[in-house]
């Protein structure tokens, strides 16, 4: 994932369930189909919440990465 392919970044650092998913839903609505949302999170619950949300909604989880407790998800809007 390169910065050039990211349409928008949502930083939920420090926030916990339900806010990362509430804000992710809000952020994805602002994008057009095919655009990519980068989600930065520290809530470990997002490790399960975001992949299952993608499977349920049809958005594509392009990749995820974790470094020093920070999780980054790259989601392409359906």
């Amino acid at each position: 994932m390169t910065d050039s392919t990211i349409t928008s970044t949502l930083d939920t650092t420090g926030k916990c369930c339900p806010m990362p998913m509430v804000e992710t839903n809000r952020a994805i609505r602002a994008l057009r189909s095919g655009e990519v949302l980068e989600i930065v999170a520290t809530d470990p619950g997002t490790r399960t919440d975001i992949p299952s949300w993608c499977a349920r909604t049809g958005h594509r989880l392009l990749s995820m990465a974790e470094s020093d407790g920070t999780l980054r998800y790259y989601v392409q809007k359906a």
Partner: protein
Amino acid sequence: MKSMTIVIRDDAYDKILTPLAFTYLAAAEGTHVDILFVNWAVRALTEDGARALKVEGRHADQDAWVRERVAAAGLPNDINALLKALKETGNVNFYACSLAAAIFNVSEHNLIPEASGIVGAAWFLNEKAAKADHCQYF
């Protein structure tokens, strides 16, 4: 999931947070959520009642700490503000159980504007709970 109903009976501050957090998650995803407030929890649908909610029991002395942690998590730590935020999603309805309203002195006059009214439990159970995809009780 298109629709969900929740019945909330416990009005301790920390215990009411879970159903409201679940509501926020579902509503954010477009699920329609109808909530019936029964027993003491009906008072959460009044400004004074929501303001009076406290952490109770053996954790009562940690009320301020819980509120700080809720705010740090990004949620409104005031129940009135949280109910407003849920209503603003456009996917949530709050109902006061008529029996609970009668017992705990809640009327149309002191209901918060975000509430959809005082309703009979039979209506809620048949028209909302029985027709929803999923029901939860707290």
